[in-house]
């Protein structure tokens, strides 16, 4: 239990109030007629504070940037790929997520860009739920074989009876050396999908590392070995504690993107929620 304005409130309520506090601070009450609350919602991250025994709620840029990138142009090239002066294409790197298996050694066996952050800068990403796409391959009416192109159905996934839950994250301070702008950038770690997520996110069969309270505390405050960091990042949140429901395909443009939406032609998940 926590206290807000002298009243005992739950941790979820406390976190909500702290987020509201931050949003209110930046809100112009007198010149605002209609406010789209969703569009302004901050991405909240719990980060260990200087005392290393408590945390701050901060906003971070989602998409980990290694410190050696000189400026925003280089950061964009890193993320999106680019063609060099000889016309050679260099692929971009998606660093929204960091695979738990590759926190210290990347898939080529070299030291990972995430290693330092995994050791020193672990954080918790607050989430009310997340979105993933289930790929369904319709059958060819003539041959009965699955078509090569899938239909994607969006799902909203949440944790039962939890208004908020924690995802494991790692962060890196990054400075644009041209402008001096400094931001904290973030990657959410991912683990192999549990039985529910194997069906929902059936293209990649991965899921964010969702941590229960004990693991969340250990992740943020623990003095951990590389092995233990990897072990926690790999932990698989139980499917039976999660909910998944289909939502409208245009959900990103709506005010309430998590509103359930049923598709008549979509087979039900085989995993009983």
């Amino acid at each position, binding site marked *: 239990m926590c206290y*807000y*304005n*002298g*009243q*005992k*409130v*739950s941790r979820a*309520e406390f976190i*909500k*109030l702290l*987020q*509201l*506090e931050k*949003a*209110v*601070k930046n*809100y112009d*009450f*007198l010149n*605002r*007629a*209609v*406010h789209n*609350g*969703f569009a*302004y*919602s*901050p991405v909240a991250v719990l980060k260990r504070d200087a005392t290393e025994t408590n945390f701050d709620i901060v906003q971070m840029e989602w998409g980990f940037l290694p410190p050696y990138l000189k400026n925003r142009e280089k950061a964009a090239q890193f993320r999106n790929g680019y063609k060099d002066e000889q016309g050679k294409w260099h692929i971009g790197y998606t660093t929204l997520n960091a695979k738990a298996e590759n926190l210290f050694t990347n898939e080529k066996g070299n030291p990972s860009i995430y290693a330092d952050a995994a050791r020193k800068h672990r954080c918790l990403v607050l989430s009310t739920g997340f979105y993933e796409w289930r790929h369904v391959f319709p059958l060819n009416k003539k041959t009965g074989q699955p078509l090569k192109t899938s239909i994607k159905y969006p799902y909203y996934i949440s944790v039962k009876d939890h208004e908020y839950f924690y995802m494991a994250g790692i962060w890196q301070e990054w400075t644009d050396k041209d402008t001096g702008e400094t931001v904290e950038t973030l990657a959410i770690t991912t683990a192999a999908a549990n039985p529910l997520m194997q069906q929902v996110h059936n293209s990649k069969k991965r899921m964010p590392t969702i941590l229960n309270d004990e693991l969340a505390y250990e992740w943020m405050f623990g003095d951990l070995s590389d092995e233990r960091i990897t072990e926690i990042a790999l932990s698989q949140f139980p499917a039976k504690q999660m909910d998944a429901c289909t939502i409208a395909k245009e959900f990103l443009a709506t005010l309430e993107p998590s509103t359930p939406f049923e598709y008549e032609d979509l087979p039900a998940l085989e995993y009983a929620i």
Partner: protein
Amino acid sequence: MEPGDRFEIKLPDLTMQVGYHIINNDEVFHVVFSDGRPELVLHEALSGGLPFWTSIPEARHRLKEVAYFGARIAEHLKNN
């Protein structure tokens, strides 16, 4: 009531000018007072599953005001 709407609550010794807003999907009420006291941003939060009025940010020295003016807003909403 739509976000951005404003209404007045007349009390015996002062008038509250209240603006209704949705921030982070939560309802908040921005209150300006006719007697010049500092404005308040009020929100109904939950304590042990029961609602209570709080200011955003916390204003520990104004707890009585927060509870009183929050209750006046609740009354107004119920009766209008």
